[in-house]
Structures are given as structure tokens and as C-alpha cells.
């Protein structure tokens, strides 16, 4: 089966690029799974979403993606994240700290912070 060419980029740098079998991302309409030969799609990613790239050599790739776009076409998937962090790069202690702080203060702004911290922990493979 054909493979997807996937690129995960943020404005400051390219996080990852390579071939994969499947990409799962969270757009504002809900989760979207992309496999080879998917129709061209342009979607907006949610704040604090988790991106999974499956079928990568050396295990699946998980990243926390905050805002941005996913664009699919010709078996190419570009994830244009406003900010993103690979699961392996997440500082678990700090993310947990941020989650606790955001949980403690109950206002509208912290809801987004909770989402972000949650996404980072999930990306790092932690229980939330």
C-alpha cells in the first residue's frame, strides 16, 4: 500500500517528517483519521489536540499540537501547527505542574490551559 508523506512543522522549526501509514488529528469538527488515498482536506486543528502518526519506523509518533492546520493532498499530509511539541520532548513534571495550576484556578482562560497541559501529557504517554 502506498505510504503517506507526513510533515509536522511549526513556525520556528520542522518537528518531524517521514513516511507513515496513518495520521490521526483533532480538528474542530472532531477527530479525523487519514490513510493513503484520502481525499484532499484542509482542516483547522483545535487547541490542545493530540496528533498521532502510525506506522512509522521505530514506533508511532505522538505530538501535542496547539492550533494550526492539517492539509492533505496527493498522499501528502502537512501539519502546520502554531505551536507543537513531540511527545518525547515534553517535560512531564512541568506539564503536570501546569495542569494542576490550571485545574486549581477555575476560570475560562484556564480551560484552554487544562486542554494544553492534558495534550502534552497524553503525547508524552502519561496517564491523565
Amino acid at each position, binding site marked *: 500500500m502506498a505510504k503517506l508523506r507526513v510533515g509536522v512543522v511549526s*513556525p*520556528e522549526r*520542522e518537528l518531524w517528517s517521514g513516511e507513515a501509514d496513518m495520521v490521526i488529528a483533532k*480538528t474542530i469538527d472532531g477527530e479525523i483519521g487519514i490513510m493513503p488515498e484520502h481525499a484532499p482536506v*484542509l*482542516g*483547522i486543528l483545535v487547541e490542545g489536540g493530540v496528533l498521532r502518526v502510525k506506522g512509522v519506523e521505530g514506533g508511532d509518533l505522538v505530538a501535542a499540537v496547539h492550533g494550526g*492546520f492539517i*492539509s492533505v493532498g496527493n498522499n501528502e499530509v502537512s501539519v502546520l501547527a502554531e505551536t507543537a511539541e513531540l511527545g518525547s520532548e515534553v517535560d512531564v513534571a512541568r506539564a503536570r505542574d501546569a495542569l494542576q495550576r490550571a485545574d486549581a484556578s477555575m476560570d475560562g482562560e484556564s480551560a484552554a490551559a487544562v486542554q494544553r497541559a492534558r495534550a502534552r501529557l497524553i503525547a508524552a504517554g502519561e496517564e491523565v
Partner: protein
Amino acid sequence: MGAQLRLLRRRIKSVRSTAKITRAQELIASSRIVKAQQRMHAALPYEREITRTVSGVLSNTAKVDHPLTVQAENPRRAGLLVITSDRGFCGGYNANILREAEALSRLLRDRGIEPTPYVTGRKGIAWHSFRSREMGGQWSGFSDAPAYGNAKEIADALIESFRDENGIDEIHVVSTAFVSMLTQQVTVTRILPLEVEETERPPDTGPMPYYEFEPSADGVLDQLLPRYVESRIFSALLQSAASEHASRRRAMKSATDNANELIRVFTQQMNQARQAEITQEISEIVGGANALADAGAGKE
């Protein structure tokens, strides 16, 4: 010691300490160019992808009627984003930018458009406020290592004014493009309204895909176009930062070279003065000895 000798010594000392400073600045700048260049390259993939996506969307949606792509019928006001540095010591870097910005302002005025400068960098802000020119916005403190947040802040201000009925109708960016270590070029680009143009696509990429949108075309464009503007501004900031370091390195290198040349000339003059002094002393001693000898001979 002769007065002239002392004077030259003092000058050499002062020039030498200047050379030390400029040399240090040169080394700092050259190490920062590398970092700035890396940041520039790291930002390229995002810029490329977002440009591709925008052109893909704009070229295959039936009608593009987004506020950010609509050209005003009678543009009356234009925003000029002028990107300068925070610090001096970088040769003609800021002067070139400001000259180009002035030329563009004149051009716009001739077309009946009133330009409003939006300035980043302390040097450009000082230049404008000294001439009491009104600025639409000013930002500083990040010219040598801009972050994406800075670009976002600038883009937000520009887009807000662009969307406003009585705001600006066009946005131009005056920045310095980093061509190579030795060449930096002042460039002017119009970033808004976006130009929707059917360009010849390179044959290897194939036809642009016809996108489905999640949730809707308008919703996606609303998000996509500001990100595109941000990315363009970010890239201009990064290029300008690299150019600033390159200009500073060049300016500091020639300052160091000039200082070393001065030291060489002064050292020569100093040696000459010292030698002249010694020669004079010897001839005085010899003259004195001869006179004594003559006097002694006369007695006998």
C-alpha cells in the same frame, strides 16, 4: 621622554582598546549570524507549506471573497512595516532601510495614498520620533532574535487596521533580505491584500488538489490567511536579523582593520620619533665629549 613620543603612545593605547572592542563585536556578530541563519532555515518548511496551502486554496475555490484578499477600489492609506535593528554599530544597515522606506512613502504619496509607518527596532523608532512622524505602531527589543510571538503581535495590529473601514488599505514591508554572508538586499514586498494570481505551476508537483474544508471554506480562510501574514512577517524578521548580524560583522571587521592600520602608522611614527631622539642625544654626547677633548687639548 619627548612630548611627541608620549602623545603617540597614548594614542596607540586608545586605538588598541577600540580595536579590542570592535574585534569582540565582530566575533560576537559572526557567531550570531550562524544561529540566525539556522533559525531562518528552520522556519522555511512552515513558510513553504503555508504558502503552498494558501495558493492551493485560493486557486481552487470558485470565488475568493475574503476581506484579506479584496483590493480596495480607491486605496487611501497604506501601512509601511519598516524593520530596523535595535542597536547601531552595523554600518549602513538602518540607513539603507530608512532610505528605501522614504522612497516608497514618496511613491505612495504620488499615487495619492497616505503612508503610515509601523516600525520595529529601536533605531527606526528613534529616527521617526526625532522627526516627529506619527507611527501606526512600534515594537522593539527583539531585532536580533525575533520569536514567532513578535511576528504575531505585529501581524495582529496590521490586520486589525486593515479590516477597519477607516484603516489602512495596503500593507507593505520594507526589510532586508539575507542573500548571502556578503550580500544583503533591502526589499519591499506587499503582503496585503494578498495577490490571487494564477501562476504557472512547476510540472513536477502535479495539479493542485481540490480541497474539502473542515469546517467550511470561509472558516478555514479566516484562520489561514492571518497565519500566512504572520509567517511572512516572521520570515522578514528572521531575514532582517540575519542581515543585521552580517552587516554588523562587516562594519566591525572594517573598523578593526582600520584600527590596526592606525596602530601600524602610529607605531612607525613613534619609532621614528624615538630614533630621532636617540640620534640627537648621541650627537649631543659626542659633541659634548669633543668639546671637552678640545678644551683639554688646548690646556696642554
